[in-house]
């Protein structure tokens, strides 16, 4: 029994790292620009479909196209920020909300129009392989996905910590006026930030496609999932997003296994409510 529970927890942890990468994108965007990306899950599902299409047509393994897809998503995010979203930075939350809900509606129904409502699986040759480590059986795809997520997250953390652009973006997040006064091109940096946020999402979507079947109906659930994770971890905290992802991944896995799969997100929302009430800034967030 203990072995089974341990297996369930480890599987949840591996999935949770991919969730964490997705939420990381949301956290970066909000932390810097104070824009809440209500189309986050929709972009994730676009990433899943991108991986699916490349696999079906060119037989490319999602892991090999991870970086190209992330790069394309960076470009999309950069352009979106420059054209559509930038005028809404600093505007009222409900205005940003309507804009991004409109965008989300367009994306999810565009996917529905092109791909139909059916779930699209990626059947890799090693989809059903697993590693046996002591009493644990680890799905190969989940291990790869989790490692991929960790690698992308680590790269992003290093970027923000050690590069000039990364430091400049952090300066914008800390003190916008100060950043503008010392001559930083805030518009450009915001566009890079949104691009980075979407690159996370593209990568997360690509990895997610190997462990879940792509379908337009996932989009809204993923948006809510990303929010839940980011609030639990602390909005704007990058490490918090990963920790929140792991927590939610494990909680979903346990609830799905021991109670009922259809009730698993109920526990995520309960966790969210508890965190909001007891520690609204999130586990790793700075005080509000």
């Amino acid at each position: 029994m203990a072995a089974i529970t341990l297996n369930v927890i480890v599987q949840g942890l591996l999935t949770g790292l991919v969730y964490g990468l997705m939420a990381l994108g949301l956290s970066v965007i909000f932390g810097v620009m104070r824009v809440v990306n209500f189309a986050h899950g929709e972009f994730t599902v676009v990433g899943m479909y991108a991986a699916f299409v490349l696999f079906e047509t060119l037989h490319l393994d999602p892991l090999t196209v991870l970086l190209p897809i992330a790069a394309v998503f960076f470009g999309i995010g950069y352009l979106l920020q420059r054209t559509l979203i930038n005028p809404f930075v600093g505007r009222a939350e409900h205005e940003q909300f309507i804009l991004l809900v409109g965008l989300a509606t367009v994306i999810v129904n565009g996917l529905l129009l092109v791909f139909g409502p059916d779930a699209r699986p990626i059947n890799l040759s090693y989809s059903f392989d697993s590693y046996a480590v002591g009493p644990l059986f680890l799905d190969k795809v989940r291990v790869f996905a989790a490692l991929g997520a960790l690698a992308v997250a680590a790269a992003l953390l290093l970027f923000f910590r050690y590069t000039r652009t990364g430091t400049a973006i952090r300066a914008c997040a800390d003190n916008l006026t100060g950043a503008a006064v010392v001559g930083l091109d805030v518009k450009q940096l915001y566009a890079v930030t949104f691009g980075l946020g979407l690159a996370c999402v593209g990568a997360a979507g690509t990895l997610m496609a190997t462990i879940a079947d792509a379908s337009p109906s996932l989009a809204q659930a993923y948006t809510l999932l990303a929010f839940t994770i980011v609030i639990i971890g602390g909005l704007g905290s990058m490490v918090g997003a990963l920790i929140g992802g792991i927590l939610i991944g494990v909680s979903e896995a346990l609830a799905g296994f021991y109670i009922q799969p259809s009730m698993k997100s109920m526990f995520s929302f309960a966790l969210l409510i508890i965190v909001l009430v007891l520690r609204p800034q999130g586990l790793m967030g700075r005080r509000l």
Partner: protein
Amino acid sequence: MSGLWFNASWRGKALCLLLLLVFALAPVIADRYLLSVLILVFYFSYLGHAWNLLMGFAGQLSLGHALYLGLGAYTAAALWTLFGIGPWLGVFVAIPVATAAGLFIGWLGWRFAIEGVYFALLTIAFAEFTRIGFDHLQITGAAGGLFLPVNGQAANEWWNLGGGPLLYYYLSLTLAAAGTLLVARLRQSPLGYRWLAVREDPQAAQAVGINVFRARMMAMLVSAGMTAVGGVFYGFYYRNLFPSQVFDIGHSIELILAPIIGGLGTVFGPIVGAIILTPLGEGLTGLMQSLGLNAPGAKAIFYGVTLMTIISLQPNGVWPWLARHLRLDRPPE
């Protein structure tokens, strides 16, 4: 109302009366389909008013109003199907149930200074939590849905909210009109001015002696209560309830589009928004059908683009712009 009424220009007054007259007489010429569209317009105006009280007046963003609507609908419907208690009585149970939920969420949130995006997410979390809960609640049919017998409809039992389209038409018109009157009255009341003060600057409001927490709780009380009444109407109009539809976040979003597009914090915004959005959605469906296009999603794409366009061009909503250009408000002295 009086203040608002006297502040309106003669054009505004004339347009208001004309619209009421047209809506009151519409069933004479309108067919069943047009009536059903108008019912939706009134329904969304009314719910838009309810949500607008909390967001537009008291400044608190709720993205989970489907919760109060669903609780109202399920309470009245369950009382009717399980105990035979009719909706005119059931609504007096539905209102307290929904307002209790609303006050609990408001208390949890505002007590701990959870505002803005955080409060919005708290409301989503409660609505989604409840949705999944009702998906597994056997007594109300779980995910399979709760159905209200339709024989009441054939029997034309207005006292059980069963009847033809005319009943629902005038009922929804009454709801929308009464909602407008209530909002207009509250807007001009001391409470309404407190709400505006709290919305604009909670700290300053506190400093001049307004109890911010209490003002917000009052807004939640009225808003959730009004929404519950709308829920009772929803339940007895559609006569079937599914948690995945009623409590869904998509439903919450649907309810708040009209007031935002029409003009947040205005009395007539929700009405204008509903008049624009509902026929737009219906018209798109009709257009797709007449063109013989079977493209699921195309309608929603256009809808999404419209939302983005309106919020980009008229971020304060259509009504303030309309009122200015048609000179419906008396110009400020």
